[in-house]
Structures are given as C-alpha cells and as structure tokens.
C-alpha cells in the first residue's frame, strides 16, 4: 500500500469510528431529518400537489429531499469534526506528519461520503412508507448517487471548515449557506411553480442536480413520475464537476492552512 493510500485510509477509518462512538452525532444527522420528514410529510399530507407531477402526497415528494438532508447533515457533522480537531489540536499532529494534504482531505471526504451513504441506505428501508416504487436496480443506483452527493457536500463543508476557527462560526455559515442550498434544491418544493427568481436560483444551484439525480434513480422503474426534472446523466455530471471543484479548492485551502 502506498503511503498516500495508507494516510487516506487511516483518516477515513477514524472518521467512521468516531461517528459510531458519538451517539449524539447519529441522532443529529439521522434522527432529526427522519422526524422532520414524518411530521412535515404527514402534516402536509394530501394538501400538497406536485405541479405537473402525478398524484403523490408530500410524504412521498419530500422523501428524496429528506435523504438529501440526511446526507447534508452528515456532511456538516463530518466537517464540524474537522473544526473540532483543529481546536483540540489533533490536526496539528496530522499536519506535522509527512503526508500530502490532499491525502488528508481525501480521507476526510471519503469518511463523510461513506457515512452519508450508510445512512442513506438505512433510509431506503422507509421506501414502502413513502410509496416510492423501488427495485434493486433503483436502490443500487440511488445509493451510488447518495455517495456522490455526500462526497460533494463534505468537500464543500471542508472547504469552509479548513478556514473557520470556531464551531460557532461554522454554525452561521451552515445556516446562511448550506441550509438554503438544500431548501432551494427541489428537496422541499419543486422548481416548477416557484417564484421566477427563486426558480432561477434553483436552476443554478448544483444541489438541485444532486436531488434530481436522486429522484431519477429512486424512480428508475417509473421515470414518468420525474419526467420534468433534469436528466440523470446531466445531473450526475453536474454533481461530479461541482464535487471536483469543491474537492480541489478544499485541498488548496488545506495546503495553505497552518493548522
């Protein structure tokens, strides 16, 4: 194994071990979105009609959005851990080791993506409750997309976390940037029918394509239900491109960081 892989691997492993040992993180990243989904989804119930879509209720419409939220929250919690590591000076020891910064960042991003993916898989158990017609093929494709969204959002989070000194500072960034990114991604309401200005923002929001890719894979066996969304391959390509940009910027930030 090359030193690069070894370094990435050990950081990846640590992210996952730490997550499993911190029960509050599991509750925060997984329990909260699920609760939101059940409360909001049942609350809106049939009052919500997907403009131009079929007759699905909000519980069903919101379901892919909540997977995106779980992925987002997992990414945010993973990046919190980086801010904490810096504060606790754990990161200093890593930075003084003879390893490329990109291996450190890649390990962190892969950790976040893996956690996002694992929680997404757990959420797939709820598909019958949501009324999504999932088959095996769709499940595998959806899980891959979750991993991709997880990678991208963790990289975006890290790009910010490597610059920010305190968890409080990161909280405000999260509220001002990351949560709106999710709100305006088609996770909560569709682009069609939104105010034109909001609609425009939604169309340039990269996460819109992540959520679209997720909807398209979830409905792989019933593509008519998601016919008015951006195409699957376009969505996946946009996510890969955005993820790549975030990752390289995060590496550059880490290379300039003084720990």
């Amino acid at each position: 194994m090359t030193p690069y892989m070894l370094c990435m691997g050990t950081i990846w492993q640590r992210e996952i071990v730490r997550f499993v040992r911190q029960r509050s993180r599991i509750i925060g990243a997984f329990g909260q979105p699920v609760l939101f989904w059940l409360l909001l989804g049942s609350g809106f119930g049939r009052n919500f009609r997907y403009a131009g879509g079929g007759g699905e209720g909000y519980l069903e419409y919101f379901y892919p959005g909540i997977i995106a939220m779980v992925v987002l929250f997992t990414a945010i919690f993973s990046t919190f851990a980086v801010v904490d590591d810096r504060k606790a000076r754990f990161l200093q020891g890593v930075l003084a080791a003879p390893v490329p910064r990109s291996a450190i960042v890649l390990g962190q991003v892969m950790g976040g993506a893996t956690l996002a993916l694992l929680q997404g898989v757990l959420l797939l158990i709820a598909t019958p409750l949501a009324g999504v017609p999932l088959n095996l093929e769709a499940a595998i494709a959806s899980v891959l997309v979750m991993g991709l969204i997880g990678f991208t959002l963790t990289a975006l989070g890290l790009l910010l976390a490597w610059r920010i000194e305190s968890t409080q500072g990161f909280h405000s960034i999260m509220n001002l940037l990351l949560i709106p990114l999710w709100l305006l991604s088609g996770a909560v309401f569709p682009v069609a029918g939104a105010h034109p200005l909001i609609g425009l923002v939604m169309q340039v929001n990269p996460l819109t394509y992540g959520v679209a890719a997720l909807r398209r894979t979830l409905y792989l066996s019933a593509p008519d239900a998601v016919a008015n969304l951006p195409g699957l391959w376009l969505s996946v390509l946009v996510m890969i491109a955005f993820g790549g940009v975030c990752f390289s910027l995060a590496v550059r930030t880490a290379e300039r960081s003084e720990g």
Partner: protein
Amino acid sequence: MNSDLGPALAVQGVTHRYGSRVALKDVRFEVSEGEIFALLGPNGGGKTTLFRIITTLMRPTSGDAQVFGHSVRDAPHAVRRKIGVVFQQPGLDPKLTVFENMIHHGRLHGMLGGTLRNAADALLAQFGLIDRKKDYVETLSGGLQRRVELAKALLPRPEILFLDEPSTGLDPGARIDFRNELKRLRSETNTTVVLTTHFIEEADHADRVGVIHEGDLVAIGAPDALKKEVGGEVLTIEAGDPESLRAKLEEMFSCEVKSVDGSLRAEMRDAHAAIPKIAEAFPGEVRSITLGKPTLEDVFINKTGKRFIDADEDLPEARKS
C-alpha cells in the same frame, strides 16, 4: 549518522510578525545531533511561534530553519520525515483508544501491519502503558496522556524530537519521569531533543539553553556557563528604603546593584564576605540578606532587567497562538 548534513537544527535569522507585532527578531542558533536543547522564556516571548516554524506548521516572515540540512521553507515534507513532535495541547484523539491513537499515527508515517503493531506495543510497554492500551484516551490522566503523546511521537523513530512545554500540566513526579525518559532516549538512540519551557528548573537539565525574551534570543549556552557569566554569587537584599541603600551599596562595593521588584540584587565574586560588612554599615536599614548561587533566573534578570515571573505575567497566554 547525519553529521555530513550539518547540525540537527539550524535556525537562520528567523523573523516573524503577526501584523505589526514582531514575535521573533532575527533569531539564530544551532543544535548539534544528540543534544538536549531547551528554549527557555516566559509565555508569549516567542517560543511557541518559533516552535511552530521549526515543526513546519508555519512559515516565518523571513529567515529559514534547517533540520539536518532540510529547509522548513523549501522542503517541509523532508523535514517532517525527520521530526517527532509533541505539542503543548495534546494531539491525541480522546475518542480512540491508546492503541488506536498509536496505530493511526504510525500509518500517517507510512508504517503498517505487524511491524507497526509490534513497535506500538514495544513503546507502550516501555512507557508503562501496556495495561491501558485498550482504554479510551479521554479516561487517562494528564500525565498518562503526555506519556502516550511521547510514545506516539517516537513511533516512527524520529531523529529529532520537538517538545512544546512538555512539563505543563504534569505533577512534579511525572516531570522527573518525563525528563529521565528523554535522557534515556538520548543515550540509547542519540535522538536530538529540542524543547520549549517556561520552567527554569526544566531548562537546568538541558545540555544547552537558549533564553528567549520578547522575540530575542538574549542568551545561549550550557546552563553552568550561563550562570558563571552572571558572576560568582548573588546577594538579594530587602530594605526599608531600597533606593537610598542602592546608591550607598554601589559606592561601597563599586559594583552594579539592581533594583528588581522592590528588592536589591547584586552579583559579586565574594558576596558572602560582603554580608557582615553590609549588616554593620547599615543597621536598621536592612531587613534581610540572602546569599545564593546564580540560577537561570539570575541569567534572565541579568539579560533583561526583569524577573522571569513578571515577564511571564506581562504577556498573556492568549497571545501565543
């Protein structure tokens, strides 16, 4: 083994500024291979800044430092292969066990598999930590965490070990253990040790000491040599009216008498002989006279005109980072 590459550490005219504040002013010194070198100075004097520069975490505003011939500025990666670092704030993951922390660190240094596990076990045994190896780091006392930290830093067999304030947070017994550990390390593996400290007695145990104050390296040398520079003996005199007594004493002994923090301080060759003379000449004025051999504290006072403890309080801890 590295003598052809020059000294273990060469600090070459390092200057560092935080905005307009100058933290280090053209600091230069060298540390030879196998030496135990202490950077002594009050908190906020620039030690931690220098430490961050020589461990490659920060680039100096100007100047350079070389570790076995590798520049921290141009070849930080090569420097990182040579060094083991123990930071002031523990760099352990409290949510991992002692052993997991060791393994994680070893992998960052390219070690793996059985070699890594055996090396980790050997070091944990050597530091008396083997029965705690499966415990979470957060359950360990501060002293034990320090020991894990040192064991961890030694895992990749560094040629030079950097320690930032290793005694902070340790009880006196643990301090002595830690110091003996460093000496044993040097005698067994010829590892060079560079540590920072604001404890005078800790610097006393180093082969050589560099005294840093307000960003300047004000003195450097073996502790005994530095103390000899101060003079033979030191008299400390408490008096009712120190200023008037100071003038009289200077005239009487024709030597410099310093007023430090309300007491008078004089360095002379035969200070013990001066005691009865002072007592007879100024009855009533003198409250007490103390005779002492010079300490590194006296070296500090001699070079800076300040008492070490006061200089320490002048500069709040927060300014270091």
